[in-house]
């Protein structure tokens, strides 16, 4: 190793005595061409469960883990050209010359994943590794660290043990990064920015009707958020909600959705039988973390709009963690008069015990159940039929109103109705609509129902 660099204080990590990020960056940038020509590989590694260990056992033990792992790496990789702790639980090794990179990865895996015995605790970590090599995909050594980190990021996202950098990866990483940045710019978790994004109409709500086929009315409409990006166009929530959760702006966006949906709902016409159309709002799991904010936002939205609370239906996605805290929050929301629905029932962590403990009014059957219902494949149809009936009878037993999502054909609708499910959502009746289209849909649905009524008479 280059001792001049390694011993400069500004390039040393005080905890481990290894080089820091600046150190390895400088080393890579200044690597002479004749060494680069022999081949250069950069291996980045992160301790996969470190955050959890650090949280549960304390930062002091966390530091001890980092320094112990650093010692192991130093001992095993005395032949490495450079070793650094780039930040937090991230390490980086540089190899030059004709080494077998797979062998190095094996060694790194082996020694860092051996159990640690520290402060009377036995800790077993797992690691993820990202690798980049000088060559067609990375031509400059100063780019190697970044490339290895892009690969590591991918490994993390895809739950892989290791990942090698390729050019495609770079493209994907740039896209994701750009989207994340744009989202930050649009929100920045600060209200001024958010209001700007909202007044720019970048976020908007669309509504998909939930029809009650027994009374020929629109029972409610589900509010679905869309991000209308000035350059990228309409972005699906599947792409930006996880990101919003990750960069902790979901509560701000979530609160806007609640308020907006409540005030939009007030502008909806009534059904032809005089009943009001409700609004279904998705609540993200992260909104439950700041449960007091969630409850007060809903309360405020109800007060501001004066909407009848029972028209507001809050959809909660099933998750493993329905702890007592979360149940208390759902209880508090129901005490405000809102209805609650368990979303995507039967797909994730469905537990019948949960149906006993979570205070609920509706369960929403995931579209995957009924996808094959009434389809051409008889076997799939039978299976789909069986499970649909089973879930519907569960709903009945627990005294919950079932809402079936993803209904596309009249065969499906009829079958569901025969089984006692009358709340239907899906393309059979309507795709998600803009607010003004939603109003028209409700008006027309009432008229059609009347015509049908006359026909029946």
């Amino acid at each position, binding site marked *: 190793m280059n001792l001049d660099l390694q011993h400069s204080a500004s390039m040393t990590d005080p905890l481990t005595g290894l080089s820091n990020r600046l150190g390895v960056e400088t080393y890579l940038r200044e690597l002479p061409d004749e060494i680069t020509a022999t081949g250069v590989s950069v291996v980045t590694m992160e301790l996969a469960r470190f955050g959890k260990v650090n949280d549960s056992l304390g930062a002091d033990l966390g530091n001890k883990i980092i320094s*112990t792992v650093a010692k192991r790496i130093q*001992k095993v990789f005395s032949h490495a050209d450079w070793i650094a702790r780039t930040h937090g639980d991230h390490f980086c090794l540089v190899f030059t010359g004709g080494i077998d990179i797979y062998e190095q990865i094996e060694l790194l895996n082996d020694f860092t994943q051996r*159990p640690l*015995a*520290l402060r009377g605790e*036995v800790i077993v970590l797992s690691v993820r590794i990202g690798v980049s090599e000088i060559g067609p995909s990375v031509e400059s050594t100063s780019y190697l660290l970044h490339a290895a980190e892009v690969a590591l990021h991918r490994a993390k996202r895809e739950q892989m043990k290791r990942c090698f950098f390729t050019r495609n990866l770079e493209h994907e990483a740039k896209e994701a990064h750009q989207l994340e940045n744009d989202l930050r710019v649009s929100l920045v978790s600060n209200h001024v920015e958010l209001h700007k994004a909202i007044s720019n109409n970048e976020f908007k709500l669309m509504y998909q009707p939930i029809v009650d086929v027994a009374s020929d009315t629109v029972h409610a409409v589900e509010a679905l958020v869309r991000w209308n990006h000035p350059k990228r166009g309409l972005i699906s929530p599947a792409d930006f909600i996880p990101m919003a959760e990750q960069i902790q702006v979901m509560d701000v966006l979530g609160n806007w959705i609640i308020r907006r949906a409540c005030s939009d709902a007030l502008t909806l016409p009534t059904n032809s039988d005089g009943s009001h159309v409700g609004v279904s709002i998705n609540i993200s799991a992260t909104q439950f973390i700041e449960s007091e904010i969630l409850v007060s936002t809903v309360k405020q939205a109800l007060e501001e709009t004066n909407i009848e609370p029972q028209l507001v239906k809050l959809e909660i996605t099933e998750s493993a963690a329905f702890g007592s805290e979360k149940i208390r929050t759902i209880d508090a929301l129901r005490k405000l008069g809102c209805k609650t629905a368990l979303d995507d029932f039967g797909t994730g962590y469905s537990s019948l015990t949960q149906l006993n403990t979570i205070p609920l009014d509706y369960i929403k059957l995931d579209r995957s159940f009924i996808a094959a219902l009434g389809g051409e494949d008889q076997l799939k149809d039978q299976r789909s039929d069986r499970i649909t009936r089973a879930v519907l009878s569960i709903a009945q037993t627990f005294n919950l109103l079932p809402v079936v999502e993803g209904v596309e054909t009249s065969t499906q609708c009829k079958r569901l109705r025969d089984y006692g499910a009358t709340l239907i959502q899906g393309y059979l009746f309507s795709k998600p609509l803009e607010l003004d289209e939603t109003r028209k849909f409700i008006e027309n649905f009432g008229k059609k129902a009347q015509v049908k009524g006359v026909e029946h008479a």
Partner: protein
Amino acid sequence: MPNLYNLAYISKNTIKGDSEKVREEIKSILASAHKNNPDMGVTGALLYSGGYFCQVIEGPEDVLEELYETIQMDDRHGEVTVLHFEPIEERGFSEWAMALAGIEDDMRFDLDGVLGSKDELKMKETGKDLVAVLEKMVKQHQSVLSGSA
């Protein structure tokens, strides 16, 4: 003695060669333990059983941390599984820098489901079993061991 811990682990022998070679290596492990452990305040016992090393070390917490790091890096064994690392009231092997509990051809412990599993309770139980068995064996062979030390 305050801050007294014991650590029990099982690891797989990776020494290449016949049983004679293994015996030689075990002797050298014991010799270096006898040389270094007293100064560090470490005592313990070692059993070689069916291709596995079963070892208990006891001493001050920070010393055990260091010693374990040295042990687990030793290339004479691999697949180290730490069964437990816990505070103790008193030493079980206070008279031995490193007692040899025995060299046996058959594995004495039911390792199925312990090695490679993350079942902590089961590991702790096996750890306690290991300590108990080693204590018993060491006591049984006390005279033999003190003769050979």
